[in-house]
C-alpha cells in the first residue's frame, strides 16, 4: 500500500492558539476572509472549552487552491500566543513548519532550537502597543503569517474593516497598523519560507459560512415567520442569527423561558399558518419531546433544529458527536410520522432547511434538521447559495376566504373537518381567521373535527392513526435522496456509508486514497427518516467491502441498517471523544481494513 501522498506545499494550514477570551476565533476568521477574497477554498475548525475566559482556545484554518472538504491534522504555521499552544500543538506541525511567537510571552526553552521547526519570533505585544493596545497581539500575528507565506497584506486591511465594522472606525485603523507592523517585521527579518499560496484570479465568488448561519439563512429564505429558542450550545448561534435579522426580515423571534415553551410556541405559531421553527441541542430537545409529539398528533407543520453535542445530560457543550440519531428518530412517546434531515455541509444546511419547511407543510408534521457542533461552529467556503432554486410549497394550506369554498374538506353536515381522512393522509389545513374554519387542534387523539372525546373510540383511533402514519408513504416520495461520491460501489475497494458532517472528512480521505489508486465509494444518507432502506440495501449489495464511519459509540446508523435493511456492513469506524474524524484517521482506518483483506 503506498503512503498517503504529501499534501505539503499544496495548501496552507495555520493554527492560532491562546487563552480563551483573546479573540482567537475572530482573528482566525479575519485571516480566513483574506483567502476567501483571493478565491481560495477554505475550511476552518474552532476548538474551545465551555468557558468565557481562561482555558485553551485554538482556531485552525486550511486554505487551498483545490477543492477541500474538511480540516486536517497537519499544521504548517503555528501562531502561539501562549506557551500552552506550543505544548499542546507542536506535534501537529509538519517538518519545517513555522512557529510564530512572541519571545516575551513564550520562552524558547524546552522546544527550541529544533532542526525541524522554523522559529519566527516576533515582538507581538510591543508592536500591538505601538499600534494602540496589547489586545491587538493577534492582529500583529496575522500580518506576520501573511508576510511569512508571501501573501499580500492588502486583503487583511479590508478584512479587519469587516471584523470591526460595528466599532468606531479608529479600531479597524489601529488594527491595520498592528497588522502592518507584524508584516513588515517578518518580511525584513525572516528568511524565505517554503510555503507560498497564491490567490486565484477571477475565481467564482464564494460564501464563507458556518452551518448555523446557513440554517438561519435557509429558514429566512423559506419565509419563516416565527422562531423560538432557549440558548444552548451549539444551537445558540441560530438564535443570535435570527434575532439579528428579526427587524429587517419581519420575523418574530422569542427567547423563551425554557425549551418546553419554545416548542409549544412553535406549534402555536404553526397553528396560525405561520412558518415556525425552534432549535436546540440534545438536552433542550429532551424538554421539547412532549410538544414534539403534540406536533405529530396535531399535524402541526414545524421545523426543529437539533444540533448535537456529546451527551448525555450536559455532556461536552462545545464539542461534537453524532450520538443523537436514534434519539431524534424515536423522540416522544407514541407513534407519529416525522422527517429527519441531516445536512453534511454548510451548503446542504441551507438547502435542507428551506426544504424542511416545504416538507413540514406538505406533510403537516414535524421535520427535524439534525446537525452537530462540527457543522454548526465551523466555516467552509461554499458556492453562493442559489436563491432562484428556493421554492415555497405550502401544501394543502388555506389562509384566506371561506372554508365553504373547499367542499372536499367539509363533513356531511357542512362542517369543516381539520383532520378529515384522505388518501394520502394529509387534510386541508384552513387556519384560524378563515371563515368557517372552526376546529380543535388537539394533543389528545381526536376525531376528524378535532374533538378528543370521540377520539377514544377504537374506529376513530385506527382511522386517525393510520391517516397520520400513511403520511410517511407520501414523505418517501418527497424527501431528498442520499448523496453518492467517489466511484460506484461495485468499482470500489471499499464502500463507505455515512451521514451528517462526517461526510466531509470521508470525502477528503477518499480523494487522498484515490490519488494512491484506492477507489472508494461513499453513500451519504441525507434523509435519516423515513430511512432509505432500498437505497442502502442496493449500495451494500453492490459493494465488495463495506464500512460505516460514524461519530458515536454504539453504531446508531449501523443499527438502523441492520433493522431496516436486514443487512450489515463489514466494518465500522467510531469516534466519540468529542472531536470530528480527521481524513488522516479515516485513511488509516480504511488502510487497516484493506491490509487485512
Amino acid at each position, binding site marked *: 500500500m503506498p503512503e498517503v501522498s504529501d499534501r505539503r506545499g499544496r495548501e496552507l494550514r495555520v493554527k492560532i492558539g491562546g487563552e480563551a477570551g483573546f479573540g482567537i476565533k475572530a482573528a482566525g476568521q479575519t485571516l480566513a476572509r483574506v483567502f476567501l477574497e483571493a478565491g481560495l477554498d477554505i475550511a476552518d475548525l474552532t476548538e474551545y472549552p465551555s468557558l468565557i475566559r481562561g482555558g485553551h482556545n485554538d482556531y485552525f484554518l486550511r486554505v487551498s487552491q483545490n477543492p477541500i472538504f474538511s480540516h486536517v491534522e497537519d499544521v504548517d504555521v503555528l501562531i502561539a500566543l501562549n506557551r500552552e499552544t506550543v505544548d499542546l500543538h507542536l506535534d501537529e506541525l509538519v517538518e519545517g513548519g513555522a512557529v510564530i511567537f512572541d519571545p516575551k510571552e513564550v520562552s524558547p526553552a524546552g522546544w527550541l532550537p529544533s532542526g525541524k521547526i522554523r522559529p519566527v519570533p516576533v515582538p507581538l505585544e510591543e508592536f500591538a502597543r505601538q499600534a494602540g493596545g496589547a489586545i491587538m497581539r493577534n492582529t500583529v500575528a496575522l500580518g506576520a503569517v501573511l508576510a511569512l507565506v508571501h501573501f499580500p497584506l492588502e486583503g487583511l486591511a479590508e478584512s479587519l474593516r469587516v471584523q470591526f465594522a460595528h466599532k468606531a472606525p479608529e479600531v479597524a485603523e489601529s488594527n491595520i497598523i498592528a497588522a502592518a507592523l507584524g508584516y513588515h517585521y517578518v518580511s525584513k527579518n525572516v528568511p524565505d519560507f517554503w510555503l507560498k499560496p497564491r490567490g486565484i484570479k477571477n475565481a467564482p465568488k464564494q460564501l464563507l459560512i458556518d452551518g448555523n448561519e446557513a440554517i438561519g439563512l435557509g429558514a429566512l429564505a423559506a419565509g419563516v415567520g416565527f422562531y423560538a429558542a432557549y440558548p444552548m450550545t451549539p444551537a445558540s448561534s441560530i438564535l443570535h442569527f435570527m434575532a439579528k435579522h428579526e427587524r429587517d426580515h419581519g420575523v418574530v423571534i422569542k427567547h423563551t423561558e425554557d425549551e418546553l415553551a419554545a416548542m409549544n410556541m412553535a406549534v402555536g405559531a404553526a397553528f*396560525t399558518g405561520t412558518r415556525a421553527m425552534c432549535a436546540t441541542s440534545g438536552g433542550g430537545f429532551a424538554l421539547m419531546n412532549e410538544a414534539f409529539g403534540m406536533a405529530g398528533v396535531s399535524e402541526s407543520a414545524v421545523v426543529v433544529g437539533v444540533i448535537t453535542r456529546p451527551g448525555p445530560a450536559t455532556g461536552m457543550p462545545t464539542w461534537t458527536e453524532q450520538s443523537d440519531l436514534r434519539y431524534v428518530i424515536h423522540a416522544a412517546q407514541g407513534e407519529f410520522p416525522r422527517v429527519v434531515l441531516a445536512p453534511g455541509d454548510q451548503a446542504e444546511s441551507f438547502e435542507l432547511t428551506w426544504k424542511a419547511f416545504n416538507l413540514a407543510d406538505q406533510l403537516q408534521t414535524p421535520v427535524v434538521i439534525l446537525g452537530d457542533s462540527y457543522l454548526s461552529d465551523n466555516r467552509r467556503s461554499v458556492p453562493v447559495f442559489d436563491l432562484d432554486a428556493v421554492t415555497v410549497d405550502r401544501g394543502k394550506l388555506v389562509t384566506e376566504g371561506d372554508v365553504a369554498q373547499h367542499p372536499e374538506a367539509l363533513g356531511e353536515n357542512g362542517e369543516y373537518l381539520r383532520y378529515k381522512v384522505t388518501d394520502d393522509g394529509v387534510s386541508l389545513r384552513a*387556519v*384560524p381567521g378563515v371563515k368557517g374554519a372552526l376546529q380543535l387542534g388537539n394533543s389528545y387523539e381526536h376525531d376528524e373535527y378535532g374533538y378528543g372525546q370521540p377520539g377514544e373510540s377504537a374506529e376513530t383511533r385506527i382511522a386517525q392513526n393510520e391517516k397520520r402514519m400513511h403520511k410517511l408513504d407520501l414523505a418517501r416520495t418527497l424527501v431528498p435522496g442520499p448523496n453518492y461520491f467517489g466511484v460506484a460501489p461495485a468499482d470500489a475497494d471499499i464502500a463507505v456509508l455515512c451521514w451528517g458532517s462526517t461526510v466531509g472528512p470521508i470525502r477528503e480521505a477518499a480523494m487522498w486514497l484515490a490519488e494512491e489508486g484506492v477507489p472508494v465509494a461513499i453513500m451519504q444518507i441525507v434523509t435519516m427518516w423515513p430511512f432509505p432502506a432500498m437505497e442502502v440495501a442496493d449500495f451494500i449489495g453492490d459493494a465488495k467491502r463495506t464500512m460505516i464511519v460514524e461519530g458515536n459509540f454504539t453504531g446508531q446508523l449501523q443499527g438502523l441498517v441492520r433493522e431496516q435493511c436486514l443487512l450489515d456492513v463489514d466494518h465500522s469506524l467510531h469516534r466519540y471523544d468529542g472531536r470530528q474524524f480527521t481524513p488522516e484517521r479515516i485513511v488509516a482506518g480504511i488502510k487497516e481494513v484493506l491490509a487485512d483483506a
Partner: protein
Amino acid sequence: MPKVADFETALTPTWCPGCGNHAMWRALKETLEELELPWTDFAMVWGIGCHGNGADFLRCQGFHGLHGRALPLATGIALSNPDLKVIVEMGDGDGYGIGGNHFIHSVRRNIDMTAIFHNNQIYGLTTGQASPTSDQFMKTPSTPGGVIEEPVNPVGVAVAQGATFVARGFAGDIPHLKELYRAAIQHEGFAVVDVFQPCVTWNKINTFKWFRDRVYKLEELEGYDPTDRTMAFETSMKTFHELTCAPDECKVPIGVFYREEGMATYQDDLPQLTAPLHKLADSPRDISKTLEAYAG
C-alpha cells in the same frame, strides 16, 4: 354574531353534576355572545385537566394543548397572528404547578391575552391528588398525612410579577364572573382571572357552601383601590386560612385585585407584528442582501 347556543358543540359536557366547570363554561359562552366576537377573531387554548375537557364543548377555533403548556402554545398563536384575541383556560395544577414557570414569564411579558385558571385546589382529572393551591394540611391520596407546603398564592405572584390585570372569581356567582371575564378580555395586556371552581367530587373542603359563606367582593369593600399594587398584594395574602376556620374567621376576597391600563403589551413592542405572519411565506423571501455579509 354567534349566540350562546352556537358556542356549544354536539357533545354533552362530561363534568360531574354540580361541578364548577359547568358555571364557568356558561359564563364564558355568555360573555363571548355579549362581546359580539366573531368566530374568526379569537382563539381558545386549553391545558389538560377536567377544565381542559371544555375544549370539546366550546365551538370555536381552538387548541387543546399539553398539561401545563397552554400559555406558551397560546403565546405562539398571539405572537404570530395579531388579529386573534387569545383566551386560555387552565387548571391550578396545570397553570400553577407543572406550568408555573410559563405563568411567571407570561405575566412579566404582559402579553396581550386572557388567562383563566379553574382553581379547584385539587387535581380533578387524575382523581384527587393535592394541587399547588391545596390548603396546607389537606389530606389527599398523594398527601395522606396532609399537605406539608404552603399553597401557591397566584394572585400575589401575578401582582408581584408586575401583572396589569389580576382578578379572582367564584363559579358560584356567574354574573360577577362574567363581569370579570369581560374586563379581562377587553384588557390590553396579560389578564389573570383565577376562579374558585369547586370540585364536588374530590375536594370536600372548598365546596360551594364553603365559599358562599366566606367570599366578599372587593368592589364592595370601602376604600379598596385596584390601582394600588401594594394593597392588592396585601389583600392577596388574605386567602390563606386554616382548613377548619369558621366562616367569620376567614373571609376570602373576590373581584379585581389590580388593574393598570395603558401599559405597553409585549405585542406593542413588536413592530413587525402588524399582520398574520403566514403572509411572510407567500413566496420565498429575498435574502440576497443578507447573503452579502458572507460573500468573499
